[in-house]
């Protein structure tokens, strides 16, 4: 029972981090970035190939590398599409996503690359007759730290304030002096950092990475950002959390019938969207624009 709750919290936290990364970029540039999954994948590859350097260095390389790839996406593709509409951006991000998947295939091969980057996370802790997995505790703590850190950055710093302003009205923010390239760049960097954190948790769970490593969680996190209300960062984190926690709970309650987890998930998603079409936390700025 305790394990079920911890699993739900850790899954929720993990999906919340993924959704927040997607939501940050969506907020400032109305881009639904499908290639977020390939950021998660590069993070995972970097963790595995640098494993022999020791965890601290491995984390440093994976986080930096993922953030750099995120910035590279922005500079090489999205920056050139500033005046394009959301549909063009969406298709472009699809293109980047598929390109990177093929690129990983060429560099790392199509088969899974395995490695144990943090074996201690797979162990269990025993309290009398209840045992809980270390991984779930570490994930919850990591998610709390990162969500808290992001909250602080967004709510309390000047750059965070500029990101909030740009997310609600980019045009006016620029008139006031907010540098568009700077806030967009910052959003990409942070989405890269969050993707690396997600990669860390996923790769310790799965023990391997392949070119399509990040696809699944990205699609589900996108569902989360929609449920949470596109354009609201709390909404994105909350929606991602809800999706992750629901998947985890469905998995444990359905037991042998867990093949139906996603069926039930999407039934719930549709119900939520029918009741609240704008998402849990709806955002005026987005509604006006669409």
């Amino acid at each position, binding site marked *: 029972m305790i394990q079920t709750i911890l699993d739900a919290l850790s899954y929720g936290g993990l999906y919340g981090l993924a959704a927040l990364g997607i939501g940050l970029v969506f907020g400032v540039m109305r881009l639904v970035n499908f290639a977020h999954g390939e950021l998660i994948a590069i993070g995972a590859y970097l963790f595995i190939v640098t494993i022999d350097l020791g965890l601290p260095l491995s984390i440093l390389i994976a986080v930096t590398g993922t953030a750099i790839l995120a910035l590279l996406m922005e500079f090489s593709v999205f920056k050139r599409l500033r005046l394009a509409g959301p549909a063009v951006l969406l298709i472009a991000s699809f293109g980047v996503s598929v390109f990177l998947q093929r690129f990983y295939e060429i560099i790392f091969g199509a088969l899974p690359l395995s490695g144990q980057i943090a074996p201690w996370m797979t162990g269990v802790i025993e309290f009398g007759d209840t045992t809980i997995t270390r991984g779930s505790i570490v994930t919850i703590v990591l998610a709390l730290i990162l969500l808290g850190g992001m909250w602080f950055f967004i709510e309390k710093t000047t750059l965070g304030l500029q990101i909030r*302003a740009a997310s*609600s009205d980019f045009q006016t923010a620029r008139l*006031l002096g907010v540098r568009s390239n700077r806030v967009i760049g910052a959003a990409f960097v942070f989405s890269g950092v969050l993707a690396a954190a997600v990669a860390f948790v996923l790769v310790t769970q799965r023990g391997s990475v392949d070119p399509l490593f990040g696809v699944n969680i990205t699609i589900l996190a996108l569902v989360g950002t929609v449920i949470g209300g596109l354009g609201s960062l709390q909404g994105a984190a909350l929606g991602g959390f809800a999706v992750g926690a629901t998947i985890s709970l469905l998995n444990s309650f359905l037991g042998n019938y867990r093949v139906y987890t996603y069926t039930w998930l999407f039934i719930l998603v549709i119900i939520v969207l029918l009741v609240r079409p704008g998402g849990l936390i709806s955002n005026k700025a987005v509604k006006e624009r669409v």
Partner: protein
Amino acid sequence: MTLLTVRDLQSGYGKVQVLYNGHIDVEPGELVGIVGPNGAGKSTFLGTLAGSVRASSGSIDFDGASIKGKNPEDIVRLGLAMVPEGRAIFTDLTVNENLRLGLTGRREKSGAQQAVDEVMDLFPVLTTHKNHQAGLLSGGQQQQLAIARALVSEPKLLLLDEPSLGLSPTVIQDVFGVLARIQERGTAIIVVEQRAHLVMSIAVRTLVMREGHIRATLSQSDAQDEAKLAAAYFGTGEDRE
């Protein structure tokens, strides 16, 4: 030295041209009006000056340098700030956060606190609502916040797009009353209004726009002349240029 000199300015959206012959001169500390019916291109003209609408040809010289083709975020740092139509305050942010965003456009980061204090002095009501969500303010208060937010960057030229929009007559008096005090600080102002009388009584010159053209420039004394005004505004009779 003339603060703003605009000649033969053309602009629009995509392939649609909206502004055909934008021209204006503003001396330091002057208040110049622009009037004209809905859809005349007034907002487009201001937006082109502020950098949010791209100029296709013509010249914009501000404070001794060309600003044509520059980004809005650079133009505001040179001392040209705009309060867009409909105020465009960030309703989800607090009054204080809105003002802090205005500080982004300052050339020098020093003196920021003093600039905020001065603006609070101009609009005391903002002090009381400092930590409230800006969306909870009344229309008039929101307009004051929008002006205050532009002023904390200490612009040399302030562009106001229809500040009276949606405000009651007494509130309009309050807002317009402050313009004289802003001028006293040495700040020049361009005010766009559909309500011609409102701005013509306080402006040294008023341009009349129609269908993307500046059709007339009226002096303060012309403003008292109903016939001249109507002719320029509605395009009856001859254009005065």
